[in-house]
């Protein structure tokens, strides 16, 4: 595990007590239509199974500022099939009030470094085509845009695309 310190904020590995807050931040993104991971909010139990069921190969971190968890990030299993083990999917969620302060980028850089240390070969991101600032950040972090699936995510009266990005570690 690694920890980063920046003024009164810190990045640390999660413990069980963080799961309700992590779930709330995840569901905030789901409800805002910002997260491709699910089509409806998840329960704390579902989040626990997702983020802690595959330990120790996959890790989750929180970003804390003055005792308040404002963001979280995880190295997650990309695919259940064994041959896909060299690949991970990275996810970062920042609560709305703490956005545009560089926290997401800081977390993503940390995940990339950590995933490399863990011996993974490449990382993927699965994003919506908008907002553009998210796409631009992915590119700045060295991810290449691979392409998209068309009309797969339910949205009011229509369907949204998902876009895949990949980066060697």
């Amino acid at each position, binding site marked *: 595990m690694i920890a980063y310190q920046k003024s009164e904020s810190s990045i640390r590995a999660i413990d069980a007590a963080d799961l309700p807050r992590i779930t709330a931040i995840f569901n905030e993104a789901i409800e805002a239509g910002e997260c491709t991971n699910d089509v409806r909010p998840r329960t704390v139990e579902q989040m626990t199974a997702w983020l802690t069921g595959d330990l120790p190969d996959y890790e989750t971190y929180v970003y804390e500022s003055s005792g308040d968890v404002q963001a979280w990030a995880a190295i997650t299993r990309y695919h259940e099939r064994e041959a*896909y083990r*060299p690949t991970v999917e990275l996810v970062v969620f920042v609560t709305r009030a703490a956005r545009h302060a560089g926290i997401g980028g800081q977390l993503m850089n940390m995940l990339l470094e950590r995933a490399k240390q863990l011996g993974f070969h490449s990382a993927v991101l699965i994003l919506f085509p908008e907002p553009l600032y998210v796409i631009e950040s992915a590119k700045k972090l060295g991810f290449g845009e691979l392409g998209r699936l068309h009309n*797969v995510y339910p949205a009011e009266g229509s*369907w949204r695309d998902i876009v*895949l990005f990949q980066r060697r570690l």
Partner: protein
Amino acid sequence: MQEIRPARESDAAIIAEIYNHAIEDRLFATCDVKPVTAESRLPWLAFHKDPFPAFVIEDGANGVIGWSALNQFSVRPMYPAIAELSVYVHRNYRNKFLGGRLFLHTIGVARKLGFQSLVSLTLEKNKPSIRGLMAVGFRKALILREVAMLHGERVDVAWLQKDLSDWTNEESGYMKRLGETQ
């Protein structure tokens, strides 16, 4: 006479055997590494009812020589409008357009079930599958490079997608070719 019908519990052993051919023959047709057991196909079959049915193709006295299934999209299982397509053919019956027949049958069922599109995650090295999928109207959406490690090699995987409102290629391309060979 070959016939496609819904898979049933008694097909568990042959479904496992045909799937394991793909693993044993190192066809780069699956990212499973260890053979599956007949017993493991029982819960698999129990799950594979509408809207994710499984089918077998039977060849008279020779029995089941291939199978197909609709699955939840493996990377995002909760997406409601898409399904992932799998087709496997017995090693002694490959290259006889059985895969194509299973593709067409299962695509037709997916359309009736109301899916918007189908996806297939296919190893780039598995050219016969990619050709077959493209012949029935799938197009390459993207390619993940070195995403998997199989038989000691880093391999690429293509994601293919077929919009189920588009019938053109099915009718004009594959069906015609299929007809010519019979």
